[in-house]
């Protein structure tokens, strides 16, 4: 079994200014399913094809942005091993007791060098994807809107880019899959803990701890175009797309949730193995790296974060 250690992005906790507007956006427009609420007013959501109880937590707040992103590790031993890796790197950790988030096991929590909080956990209640595990149907009938399949990755902007990337590679055992470089300086890093083109990405920036986008998988380019229709039908603020990325090859569209947190839905991106070469884009070609067709950087896409 090749896949050990950190398995995948498990959830993202987003701060939202109006919980009802946020639930409408993520459930009715994007097709996530509400699975729980807690006494802090947080709402738990999952995409239809995910088995674990939640992959998005919406937190009522005075500000927008990301509270934390969490990764699921394969075993409890992995959790303690990564805890000591993180400490050995020189980053402080704290333990968050099981059930602080409903249905989630004990978490190891830390703030990475770029100012983002990440949690690791080994256990989360499984509620299933609504399809029997014996003779399963290919898709669930209980999904609306964009029909997002799973929470896939985040792109984050932080102030200590080089250390944050080194931390993910050395302490969390991610591998670099693609990058944008300006001479010796890395501007963007796409990192994978799996065979996905990326499970997280970082862009060099001046402010710590910012969210560029939280991204969700769709099944096809046609589904991306359908998402674009929904964005216009429901008057959702569009950022860029539908288009194709050079980086990761994904077909994509970007828009904002009602609190100004950027979302992406995408399909048909690339894949990798541990022996795949690192793909490099040069800064003088970053227009094409980011938007393969227009080859032009979009100011709002580059400069707007929450």
């Amino acid at each position, binding site marked *: 079994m090749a896949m050990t250690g950190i398995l995948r992005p498990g959830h993202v906790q987003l701060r939202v*200014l*109006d919980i009802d507007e946020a639930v409408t956006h993520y459930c009715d427009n994007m097709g996530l399913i509400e699975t729980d609420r807690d006494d802090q007013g947080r709402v738990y959501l999952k995409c239809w094809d995910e088995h674990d109880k939640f992959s998005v937590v919406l937190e009522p707040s*005075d*500000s*927008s*942005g990301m509270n934390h992103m969490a990764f699921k590790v394969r075993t409890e031993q992995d959790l303690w091993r990564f805890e000591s890796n993180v400490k050995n790197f020189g980053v402080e950790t704290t333990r968050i007791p099981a059930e602080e988030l409903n249905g989630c096991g004990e978490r190891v929590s830390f703030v990475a060098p770029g100012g983002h909080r990440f949690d690791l956990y080994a256990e989360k209640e499984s509620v299933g994807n609504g399809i029997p595990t014996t003779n399963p149907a290919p898709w669930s009938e209980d999904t609306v809107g964009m029909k997002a399949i799973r929470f896939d990755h985040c792109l984050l*902007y932080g*102030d200590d880019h080089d250390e944050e990337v080194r931390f993910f590679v050395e302490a969390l055992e991610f591998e670099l899959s693609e990058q944008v470089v*300006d001479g010796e*300086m890395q*501007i963007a890093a796409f990192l994978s803990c799996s065979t996905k083109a990326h499970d997280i990405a970082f*862009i*060099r*920036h*001046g402010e710590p701890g910012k969210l560029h986008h939280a991204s969700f998988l769709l099944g096809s380019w046609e589904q991306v175009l359908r998402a674009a229709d929904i964005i216009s039908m429901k008057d959702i*603020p569009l950022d860029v797309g539908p288009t194709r990325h050079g980086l990761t090859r994904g077909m994509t569209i970007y828009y*904002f*949730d*009602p*609190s*100004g*947190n*950027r979302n992406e839905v995408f399909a048909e991106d690339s894949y990798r193995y541990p022996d795949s070469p690192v793909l490099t884009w040069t*800064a003088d070609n*970053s227009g094409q790296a980011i938007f393969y067709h227009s080859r032009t*950087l979009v*100011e*709002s896409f*580059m*400069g*707007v*974060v*929450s």
Partner: protein
Amino acid sequence: MTHTITITDTEETFSCRETQHLLAGMMQLGKKGIPVGCRGGGCGVCKIHILCGTYETKKMSRVRITEQEENAGTLLACRVFPKSDIQLQVLGHLNDAVNTTKA
């Protein structure tokens, strides 16, 4: 009800319905002047100062607009709904995140 919004920096004017936020009114008419970002009160690029006029607001991210700023009429254009004609100054700008030599 439709009101006239004037960006005093550029003398650009556009009309905006009471049910629309200022950025939506500006964008619908293809006008420019206030930077456009998330349109949800989260990113801060559409920061403006209202010089005169009455309005209603929706919640704005506190990391972008402090309570004092909000009380003094420094607001995010995507969270302001006009109740009269409005004159405003633009304060926000888009960061050029690609220009990493500044970072």
